[in-house]
């Protein structure tokens, strides 16, 4: 079920009413409702893959219980590996089987040996990368004794399948989300209002910004061979805002929806395009995944403890793995590696922990220096997105080489100019609102707090009207495919 669909607009109020009016007296009943609603939400796409979520839930719940009781370190390690292998096994099979097969075959061909391979027609279960990482965090935390294993199967099932964040995150930590299923939730008016506001802003980002930018990004990337350099730059910019609006919009809707049910999810985006260096960008982009890799991969690998060389090696590993997490394509691996290369000067000069505060805090405008740093970082990010969006490496390199050609100085070849102009205007307004609200949880979190009530309400109505009228053609959320 898509957040930006009529189905969800019907589903959400029903679950909300049942949750607060029918099951509110009994925590177990509330958790049961969440599990049923979440399975229904996921089954709306394809009920067949529900068995995988259930299987993963049973395995990790059982492994967690055994880890809690087991004192023998070797046996504990075996249990941990069972969980890792089962979870990553599913992920590997569904997401990477064909990729490895094709690349092995290509490698053998390169050395003169042709081998016959049978690639499978595999459908990737929606959100598998997200819930796999979330359940892994539980097992690893229990193994490390950071968390007591839960004995409440219902609460654990609700934690694994919680519908607002099941298919595209934020990837929650068991230490943060699971205890919330053990506590009685009470309705909090201001939290719910805040949730609605965040949902509204998320819908604006997704439906108005991402879907409208997607139209032009797709048009340009799909016909890049026939277009000049300046058009391709526009295409990369459209994709830059598409992916941000799409994914951060999803996260906003997920976080807002959770708040309606009394839950707090971790923040996933913190105005990344206002970053002054690439390290800051990665502290602000897809935070739940970046911190997951930091905690469960970078630190176990030694983190920054082994000197500069170790830091560089580990940085490259997590960026390449992170790229590969996004999809079984060399484009994602190059995208990850490129970001690691961007990181390199900061690590070598020990400047990767600068810029911890939001830019120009308390000021209306940034300094010249900050502005230049932001533009430079933004440029690097846009360049890297070309690899992320391209069909394959050849496509990416051709795209970049056309940008580097003299045709960069030609007039962009955009069809539907009026519609493109409207999209650019809407995106510019969006960037201004984001800038003004950059020290908040989300851009409109505090917008209009000092206004008269009728003005504030009018603003929400206006936003709803704008979302409706300027909706682009409905597109799936990009991150569902990961």
């Amino acid at each position, binding site marked *: 079920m898509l957040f930006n669909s009529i189905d969800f607009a019907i589903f959400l109020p029903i679950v909300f009413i049942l949750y*607060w009016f029918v099951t509110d007296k009994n925590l177990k009943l509330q958790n049961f409702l969440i599990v049923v609603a979440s399975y229904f939400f996921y089954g709306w796409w394809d009920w067949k893959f529900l068995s995988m979520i259930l299987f993963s839930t049973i395995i990790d719940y059982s492994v967690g219980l055994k880890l809690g009781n087991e004192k023998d370190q070797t046996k504990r390690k075996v249990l941990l590996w069972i969980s890792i292998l089962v979870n990553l096994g599913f992920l590997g099979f569904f997401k990477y089987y064909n990729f490895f097969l094709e690349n092995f075959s290509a490698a053998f061909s390169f050395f003169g040996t042709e081998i016959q391979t049978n690639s499978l027609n595999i459908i990737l279960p929606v959100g598998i990368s997200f819930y796999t990482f979330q359940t892994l965090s539980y097992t690893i935390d229990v193994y490390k004794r950071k968390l007591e294993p839960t004995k409440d199967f219902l609460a654990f099932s609700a934690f694994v399948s919680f519908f607002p964040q099941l298919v595209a995150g934020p990837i929650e930590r068991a230490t943060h989300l699971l205890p919330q299923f053990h506590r009685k939730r009470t*309705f909090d*008016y201001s939290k*719910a*209002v805040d949730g*609605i506001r965040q949902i509204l802003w998320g819908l604006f980002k997704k439906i108005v910004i991402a*879907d409208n930018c997607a139209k032009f990004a797709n048009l340009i990337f799909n016909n890049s061979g026939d277009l000049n350099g300046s058009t391709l730059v526009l295409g990369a910019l459209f994709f830059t805002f598409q992916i941000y609006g799409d994914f951060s919009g999803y996260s906003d809707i997920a976080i807002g929806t959770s708040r309606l049910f009394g839950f707090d999810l971790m923040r996933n985006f913190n105005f990344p395009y206002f970053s002054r260096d690439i390290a800051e960008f990665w502290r602000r982009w897809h935070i739940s995944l970046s911190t997951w890799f930091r905690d469960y991969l970078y630190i176990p690998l030694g983190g920054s403890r082994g000197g500069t060389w170790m830091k560089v090696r580990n940085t490259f590993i997590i960026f390449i793995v992170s790229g590969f997490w996004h999809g079984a394509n060399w484009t994602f691996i190059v995208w990850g590696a490129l970001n690691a290369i961007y990181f390199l000067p900061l690590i070598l000069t020990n400047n990767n922990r600068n810029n911890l505060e939001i830019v120009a805090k308390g000021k209306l405008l940034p300094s010249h220096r900050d502005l230049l740093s932001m533009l430079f970082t933004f440029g690097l990010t846009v360049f890297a997105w070309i690899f992320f969006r391209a069909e394959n490496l050849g496509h990416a390199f051709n795209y970049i080489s056309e940008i580097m050609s003299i045709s960069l100085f030609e007039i962009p070849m955009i069809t539907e100019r*009026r*519609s493109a102009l*409207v999209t650019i205007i809407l995106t510019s307004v969006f960037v201004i609102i984001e800038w003004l609200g950059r020290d908040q949880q989300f851009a409109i979190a505090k917008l209009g707090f000092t206004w008269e009530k009728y003005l504030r*309400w009018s603003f*929400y*109505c*206006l936003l*709803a*009207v704008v979302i*409706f*009228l*300027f*909706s*682009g*053609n*409905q597109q799936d959320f990009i991150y569902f495919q990961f």
Partner: protein
Amino acid sequence: MKRFILQLSIISIFALVAIMLSLSGANGWTDPFYIRFTTPKQQSLIIGTSRAAQGLQPQIFQQLLNRDINNFAFTIAHSPFGKVYYESIKRKHNKKDGGLFIVTVDPWSISSWCESPNDLGQFRENQLCLNKTHVVDSNPNFFYLFDNLPGKYSNIFINIKSNMYLHKDGWLEVYNIKMDSATVKRRVSQKVKTYRNGYLPKTKFSSVRLEYLKKTITYLKEYGSVYVVRLPIHKNIMEIEKELMPDFDLTISEAIDLSDGYLDMTPQNDLYNYTDGNHLYSQSGEKVSMIIANWILEIDKHQTK
């Protein structure tokens, strides 16, 4: 909780009202079809594809025949003869006697683009507005707007400078386009290319569509006079049509027999101007409408005698 639900409901209602009000701003600029679903059910109709939609001007028929007639023609994708168009015509018709119906025909409107040209389930119009919109006379028509305009609602406000305007009587006027010979030649050559390379290879005669043409005429005949017309087109497009269906008149002879008269205007193709070879320019459309109106008057006179 009550406060939250109450406030949310109030804001939602206001937002919904604001959305409805915005949508009611949809007009002839919004898209080339919307207005046809907002006018009342009609006694007299012009039926066909975009050639009729752009070519036949109801106000000319009104002046010469003194009868209100509505242009309910769409495009070759939306309204070739078939179940979808037939049902929609029935919905738009007010079931009153004494109607006047001009049914325009051409080889494309009795052909299909699908593998099995007679498989109704594969017809391209099944996914389009005529099949999706069952309410055809509501103003504003939210059913049409919700089902057919998603992703394009902003057209209501920003499409004002479009060079197409759909009049209340259903005539789709194309104006403010360059009509110098070089530009027209380029557009004609582009259209010919599209028809020859794009449409011709995938187009197959459909006996089911022909049956629906007959069915449409039979239905309309119950309520008035039905005149079948083949509109003029550019000679280069005509050549393609001859390749597609060399014996077109013979093919539709049974349909012609059901009607009150058939006027083939293609022998006069060279007398008119076209915007792109397929569609009459408005001034030529006016002339053609006058010729058809006078032809109908003549037939009426003969029948009265």
